[in-house]
């Protein structure tokens, strides 16, 4: 409560002197939109600089892939307090909450806590862990109000982004420091999100350097009072310098510290053959990125970027320490009119230090410490065939990865994309591409004990150096139309052909004496004995029937058909067919009401997950925001209002237990000045 009072006091203090214009116009009744320039005086307008994009920005309608962009207003009005919550609105994604602090997020199927066919980048820094090729979503966060956009690209993005971009890429991009000047603060209290607060200050040194720093804190009680509570604190900064008109230097860094509560269930060699206990996993990490963009007078652009990330998770069933350093260079050039070439390379070095976190050694890595590198080079040429009408993009990426199988260490990932814009209101696009999901450190080096029975007998999943990359050939076709200024449709369809998908094949049983008691191990060794195909479509509709009423609809249809080789004896190979919903609907209705009120009502439907016995469900979020002053907002958000409790997922393979997501809500105050 003290926090809310502080924020109120902040908001009501008189704003600093600001230059007012006196144009012969009556100002609009609406509160100024973020980024609105029409309130600026002419003199100030003359000072505004044109934003320059690091990668070439395209109008959304022209993009030849299935893209959905989440904007700051969407995040704010959806009531999302974390990046995973915001991702629920994107068509084509499967977002499920495992417990209060863990998510399973994937694109176009194969969902799981460590969904491994999705590449996630935060400001250009890849955030998947090489252990399982998955993302620890619980530690990916920032000052939410400083997010400029989240680009959700479904389908293979391997040519431009690299391995793991098999079924999608999520690109989280924060605003330049120049766009986040001044103080912003928000905080609140709630049922699950018990209390949270964050603040940012942005300043400038002369005209050439802008910076900001933020701090954020949250304390979630979790859905089960005994174990899935979650405490995180983090701080970070961003600085952008412009030493000249043609270059920009950016530096971004974060530090975080937190504790994740979870219930763990692991196999045991003595009755009842399962051990269940609660634990808190301390997580700690930091990252630092530097980027230099140089624009030559001939409109070619060079970007050099380097980043470091270090983190540790100690006290789970696996103790993990990891340091990663990455350097990349890319160069964009238009050698001829109508040719837009991007080429570049990236080198990444990662060093880990692992150990079993529990006495039973549920997870065992051999070796315990290993260095790995990824090196890649790519080239893409976008050719304009007919000015403003027809474009084709051809590209290929070559990638070396320590964990790729030795007989073919270089992965080749080509793609071709075609965009036809018959007029500014219609666009048709098509693509064909190949992408691979390279083996993870776990698949190359780990043994995982997954179950135990009387005997005692233990079932273990075994690594193999013969395991090779999973491969995808994807065909996509999309159509966008904006029949009216206030209405747009986006339909994306795909047909994916997978090969060499992961299976676990029964191997010769053997006797093991340590750890005791002596027991028989039934090993299942990792292999690539499965093909598969998936198809589906995603529809996104944005509409504004009235100036004060907007709607967003996302519908996702997905079918996955897995075909194990005749030689495969994996009993669970086809489970993934039923681990992602076949149908999903997300709908948001946003009203701007009188008295500076805003109301959002957000129902969603998620289809049944047959593999986990998770029934289909309908849930509802709702948010009422009130802006008593232009720089202050008070909001009340209700989450998962329909059911008192509902399950969304179940962890496969990894041993944390799911909890039911509970009805909840929070009150929040945001100010900026």
């Amino acid at each position, binding site marked *: 409560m003290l926090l809310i009072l502080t924020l109120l006091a*902040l908001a009501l203090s008189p704003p600093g002197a600001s230059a007012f214009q006196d144009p012969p116009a009556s100002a609009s009744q609406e509160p100024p939109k973020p980024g609105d320039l029409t309130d600026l005086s002419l003199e100030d307008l003359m000072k505004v600089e*044109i934003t320059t994009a690091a990668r070439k920005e395209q109008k959304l309608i022209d993009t030849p892939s299935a893209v959905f962009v989440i904007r700051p207003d969407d995040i704010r009005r959806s009531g999302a307090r974390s990046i995973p919550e915001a991702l629920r609105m994107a068509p084509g994604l499967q977002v499920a909450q495992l417990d209060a602090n863990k998510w399973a997020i994937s694109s176009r199927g194969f969902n799981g806590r460590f969904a491994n066919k999705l590449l996630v980048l935060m400001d250009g820094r890849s955030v998947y862990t090489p252990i399982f090729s998955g993302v620890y979503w619980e530690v990916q966060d920032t000052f939410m109000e400083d997010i400029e956009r989240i680009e959700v690209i479904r389908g293979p993005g391997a040519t431009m982004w690299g391995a793991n971009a098999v079924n999608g890429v999520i690109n989280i991009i924060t605003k330049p420091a120049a766009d986040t000047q001044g103080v912003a603060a928000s905080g609140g209290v709630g049922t699950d999100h018990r*209390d949270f607060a964050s603040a940012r200050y942005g300043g400038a040194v002369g005209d050439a350097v802008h910076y900001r720093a933020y701090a954020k804190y949250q304390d979630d009680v979790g859905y089960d009072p005994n174990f899935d509570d979650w405490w995180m604190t983090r701080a970070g900064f961003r600085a952008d310098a412009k030493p000249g008109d043609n270059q920009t230097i950016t530096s971004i860094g974060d530090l975080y510290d937190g504790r994740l509560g979870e219930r763990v269930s692991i196999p045991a060699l003595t009755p009842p053959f399962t051990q269940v206990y609660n634990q808190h996993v301390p997580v700690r990490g930091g990252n630092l990125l530097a980027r230099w963009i140089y624009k030559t007078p001939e409109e070619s652009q060079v970007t050099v970027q380097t980043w470091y990330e270090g983190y540790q998770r100690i006290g789970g069933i696996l103790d993990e320490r990891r340091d990663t350093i990455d350097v990349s260079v890319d160069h964009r050039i238009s050698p001829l009119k109508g040719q837009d070439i991007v080429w570049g390379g990236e080198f990444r070095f990662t060093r880990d230090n692992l150990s079993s976190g529990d006495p039973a050694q549920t997870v065992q890595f051999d070796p315990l410490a290993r260095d790995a590198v990824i090196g890649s080079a790519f080239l893409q040429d976008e050719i304009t065939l007919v000015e403003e009408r027809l474009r084709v993009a051809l590209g290929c990426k070559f990638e070396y990865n320590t964990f790729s199988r030795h007989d073919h260490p270089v992965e080749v990932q080509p793609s071709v994309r075609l965009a036809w814009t018959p007029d500014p209101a219609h666009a048709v696009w098509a693509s064909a591409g190949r992408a691979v999901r390279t083996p993870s450190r776990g698949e190359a080096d780990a043994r995982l004990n997954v179950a135990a029975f009387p005997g005692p007998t233990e079932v273990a999943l075994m690594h193999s150096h013969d395991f090779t990359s999973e491969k995808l050939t994807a065909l996509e076709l999309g159509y966008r139309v904006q029949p009216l200024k206030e209405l747009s449709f986006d339909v994306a369809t795909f047909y994916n052909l997978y090969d060499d998908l992961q299976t676990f094949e029964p191997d010769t049983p053997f006797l093991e004496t340590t750890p005791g008691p002596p027991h028989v191990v039934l090993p299942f060794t990792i292999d690539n004995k499965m093909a598969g195909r998936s198809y589906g479509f995603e529809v996104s509709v944005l509409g504004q029937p009235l100036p004060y009423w907007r709607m967003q609809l996302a519908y996702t249809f997905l079918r996955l058909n897995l075909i194990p080789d005749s030689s495969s004896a994996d009993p669970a190979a086809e489970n993934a067919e039923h681990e992602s919903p076949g149908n999903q609907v997300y709908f948001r209705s946003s009203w701007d009401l009188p008295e500076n009120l805003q109301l959002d009502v957000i129902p969603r439907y998620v289809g049944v997950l047959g593999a986990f016995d998770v029934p289909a469900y309908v849930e509802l979020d709702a948010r009422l925001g009130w802006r008593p002053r232009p720089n202050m907002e008070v909001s009340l958000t209700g989450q998962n209002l329909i059911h008192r409790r509902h399950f969304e997922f179940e962890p496969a393979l990894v041993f944390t237990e799911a909890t039911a997501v509970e009805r909840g809500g929070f009150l929040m105050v945001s100010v900026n000045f």
Partner: protein
Amino acid sequence: MVMANDGSDVVVRCGTGRLSTLTAALGLLAVCPARAQEPSRAPEYRIKAAFLYNFTLYTEWPADSFAKADSPIVLAIAGDDPFGGELDAAVRGKTVRGRAIEVHRYSAASDAVPCHLLFMSNAQARNLPQFLRQIEEPLPLIVGETEDFTRVGGAIRFFVEGNKVRFEVNIDAAARARVKISSKLLSLARIVRDAEDR
């Protein structure tokens, strides 16, 4: 490995401790000098849309160019629209001297008249001399971006200098459109006149 109950107790204690620290930090931030919030960077066409809106504020059109006292000011875009929705967003809900602002779009400049302000896409601007020969008075205030725009009869041209949007005004062309441009706007513009040989 921390077992359930003592573990969660620790977390709760940590939590409240940090909360008060953060509240104190927020308090400190409050004494930092407040800055007026003004975006210092924006997409090019959002800036240009804001300029077009300002042009309507600082320009007076002849009374006979409006049917009624509250007839809207009509902004027309001829050819491909580079603004996306920015121009509509810039003028939405705004009134100038009691007049609303409307944005209309046309594929060809010749379809756009009569209007008050005509923005010509680069492709359309290539035909500006022919267009000026064809149309009858009253002329709109014609805005464009091509290099020679104000030399071939356009009234206002946007250009980019040092990554900032600038504009030049051909005061002879403005006079032909019978508009009165305020001295404030002209003081920020680069002024050009018709070339001697035209």
